[in-house]
């Protein structure tokens, strides 16, 4: 009986092409370049994607927004110049990533929300939320720097974990390529953050 069930499952998967895959109807295919010709081209996500791709992009939308919020506090409050520069670069690059990911969800017909719920399901209580970010505003000087640097190192470390999962389970080529970049960029940031943490 179990063997039969597996055989049926395999047949269904073969018919569908790939597990959990969805196809965007024709006419809504890849079209990445924004209306504003001055804006840099945003890579469009192609039409074939699976549940892992959608979950990763939805979780990253929330994750990017929280990182942007924390960076904005650090732009005002950080005392170490390296911390401030890193916050500035995270703020601006993650905005760029955010608009790209939102355009992918729109193309795929998937909602932006739900990332927090997915976090709760897959990773326990996330490190950052609005309350934690508000809490950092009460701190100043070395205590703020210490809090910001460790929160950001943890936050970006969590992004590496999410991107590693996408690399393993995702199928959309643009999304897995983005995951590769997230792994490299966030690992590099964690390395820079740890260096600043260790400096007096």
């Amino acid at each position: 009986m179990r063997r039969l069930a597996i055989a049926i499952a395999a047949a269904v998967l073969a018919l569908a092409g790939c597990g959990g895959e969805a196809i965007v109807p024709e006419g809504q295919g890849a079209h990445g370049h924004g209306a504003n010709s001055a804006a840099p081209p945003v890579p469009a996500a192609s039409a074939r994607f699976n549940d892992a791709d959608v979950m990763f992009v939805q979780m990253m939308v929330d994750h990017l927004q929280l990182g942007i919020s924390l960076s904005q506090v650090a732009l005002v409050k950080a005392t170490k110049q390296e911390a401030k520069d890193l916050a500035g670069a995270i703020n601006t690059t993650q905005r760029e990533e955010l608009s790209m990911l939102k355009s992918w969800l729109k193309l795929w017909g998937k909602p932006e929300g739900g990332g927090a719920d997915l976090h709760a399901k897959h990773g326990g209580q996330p490190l950052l939320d609005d309350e934690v970010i508000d809490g950092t505003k009460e701190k100043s000087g070395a205590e703020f720097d210490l809090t910001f640097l460790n929160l950001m190192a943890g936050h970006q470390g969590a992004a590496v974990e999410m991107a590693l999962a996408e690399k393993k389970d995702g199928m959309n080529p643009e999304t897995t390529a983005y995951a590769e970049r997230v792994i490299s960029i966030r690992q590099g940031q964690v390395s820079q953050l740890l260096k600043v943490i260790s400096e007096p």
Partner: protein
Amino acid sequence: MKLTRKAALVMAAVPAIVFITPVGTASAHGYVSSPPSRSAQCARGIVQGCGAPQWEPQSAEGVKGQMNCSGDRGDFAVLNEDNRGWQVTGTGTSLTMTWTFTARHRTRDYEYYINGTRVGYVNGNKLAPVDPVQHTINLSGFSGRQKLYAIWNIEDTAMAFYSCIDINIGGGGTQPPPTTNPPTTQPPAGGTWAANTAYAVGAQVTYGGAGYKCLQAHTSLTGWEPPNAASLWQKL
């Protein structure tokens, strides 16, 4: 909508099968960031070729009650190798440690051990950690080179997270060898873009035959190549 009715039916049936595969595992993770634990040194590239700990320094997870830098995770075994050239931190008898968390979890307690002796204990009160988490422990009675085990015991799972810190009590520390810790260098004017380089606003580079101007001060990273980071680099 050009999908056939049959295809639509098949696709509707697929999710029930696909969701059997669990995506990801619970990730409530943490490690000691300062002084740099072995995991943190892998993440920083002070010690290279670590494998998994470079990407996930927070994930040396194992069942509670071990004396094991890797938590007994096979892909983290490098953390147990004492001869990998770990940077040693010089300290007096009072040592303050800082933790980095990637997710929050209710905490039973934190324990610190040297040679099987518990030298520090902090009750977690079943609460999730609130940054910054720092603990100062008393190392009186110990001297010289020691391997300090820092353990985060989770309240509501059987697991703990392990960090090992190489210290020299009453003595000096070691500096990372310069060749393994890429310094952030000042770029030559108008040179080719390179990773791990500090770029100021207005700095100009070439990449792939094109010229770019820096819009935001940053230290460059692999993945932040000018064509991949339009918010950092304006094409000229």
